[in-house]
């Protein structure tokens, strides 16, 4: 989608880039992170962990903006985001 209006402070605001990490052994496969990621970068994978839960899979890491919602919503402390230090 192309917007014809641009934010006034577009050149000053840097969009951070995050790196998503999943701790596979902790995951219980509830799917909250996959469903509610605002950038849609996670997918439910076919792979399972040792307990038999399906894991989230990172489909497109480059879109992550380090908002941390997945980290906040995950009930099992199994996903976290790290600031990559780079800006978009």
């Amino acid at each position, binding site marked *: 989608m192309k917007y014809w209006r641009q934010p006034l402070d577009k050149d000053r605001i840097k969009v951070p880039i995050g790196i998503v*990490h999943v*701790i596979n*052994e*902790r995951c*219980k*496969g*509830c*799917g*909250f992170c996959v*469903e*509610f990621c605002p950038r849609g970068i996670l997918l439910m994978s076919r792979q399972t962990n040792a307990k038999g*839960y399906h894991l989230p899979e990172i489909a497109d890491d480059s879109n992550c903006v380090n908002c941390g*919602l997945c*980290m*906040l*919503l*995950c*009930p*099992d*402390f*199994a996903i*976290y985001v790290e600031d990559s230090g780079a800006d978009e």
Partner: protein
Amino acid sequence: MAELGYPNNECLEQSGYESSEESDWLTGLHPMDDLLRGERLPHIWCQGCGLGTALTTFISAIQWLEKNRGWDLDKISVVSGIGCTGRVAGYLRLDSFHTTHGRALPFATGLKLANPDLKVVVISGDGDIAGIGGNHLIHAARRNLDITVICVNNFNYGMTGGQVGPTTPHKARAVTTQYGNYEYPFNLPYLVAAGGASFVARWTVLHARRLTWTLREAMEHPGFSFVEIIAPCSTAYARWNPEGRGLDPQKLGRRGLEVMKHYQKIGRVGQDVHPKDAVIKVDENGLISEIVEGKFLDDPRPDLQAAIDQLASVADKRWQAAKKSLDERPKVPKRTDHVPRTEVQLGGFGGQGIMSAGKIVGQAAAIYDKLEASFTQSYGPEARGGSAGSQVVISSDPIHHPHLIEPTSAIIMSQAAYDKYVANLASGGTLLIDDGLVCLSQNHREDIKTYGIAATQIAGEIGNSRAANTVMLGFWAAIIGAVSEEAMRQSVSESVPSKTLDVNLKAFDIGFNRGREKIEQ
């Protein structure tokens, strides 16, 4: 374990934890790991349960307060009750306590009052806080004690298998209400606001970000703050109700996720909503059709500790005055003679001053004569009138049995008391009666000495018939002599109202002189 460098980790060894290479919970990878007791994890909560999310939001709020408000983690204390949510206290690496069912709030009340520096947070479920502990909830709210209560509401008793609870919506299904719940649920924000809480909010776990902000506010709020967190119960509640299947009976999926998606659809964030309007609506099938969320009340006012401090200063002033008068009371020379165990039975009807007479005797013995004394009282249910009795034991030695064993003397001022108490008097004991009020019976006991004085009549003659008990006391002091005259006199003058002091001392003298005369006869 200290090398991991967790900030709040000093007591890890004492907790019985044994380090193992297999545990992945002590890796410290996750930013919240330093506030979790890794040795107790993974937690017991089911796949898709909202409690884990409630815990992450709480930890997130604590971390923010530590970073931006300089909160000391050692000054935060978490209390939980019983239930799935009660596990929170066990998983947090904070000073935490897992109490009995429903009693998280009383425990937190004691904790906060004993150590006002602590920030006390109660995290427990709806069954614990609103069900068995419901009374504690409204009274803690009424007192406006400075604690934060986080009530995670999943609409049922989840841990025991999904029974209907105090918050189960009307017509919703639970294990024990398979045709729909016929009861009506609590509206917790309204209940607590009506109880007197000064901060009330509600969020679903889906609104995790705003929930975190509200938790920060609630913990910083001075006074009773209450946050209700709506969380899906993926195993029990979502199993029986349509939202667990995404409203499609054929669909089998992740129930917790379906409930979260449902909350996304029906959650309505309200601005300045009155707690009364903060409803959870259900349709005719028991499907939750609207959840009003937001902060409903933020009204800071003086909390319980402020009120206690204010009244404590008043009480302290009064105590200083009382202590001064106690220190200044006259000294009576200490007795050197040995007083054997002397038991006195006083009896009469209410209003004659039987209780105060007993108290005066005990006070004279204990405070002025430096003897041991014990005082018990027995009376009917009426506060005025009716029968009254009091018992005093005096001795030089410690009193091991506080009640009467075999009274050696009795002061009787009514017929009913005569009938009741004279039979118990020891053989060879002394009975003192008010002549004007008590008639000796036909078969009066021969083995006791009986002395009579018209106490009420005498007291009436000298100006106040209510001094009759003082006449009897003077009479008793002269005849029995277990307590010195000076001590009795001091005790009488300390106990009676200052306006009637002269009358009472005069009454005491008359009684004492009559007693002397009786003995000399």
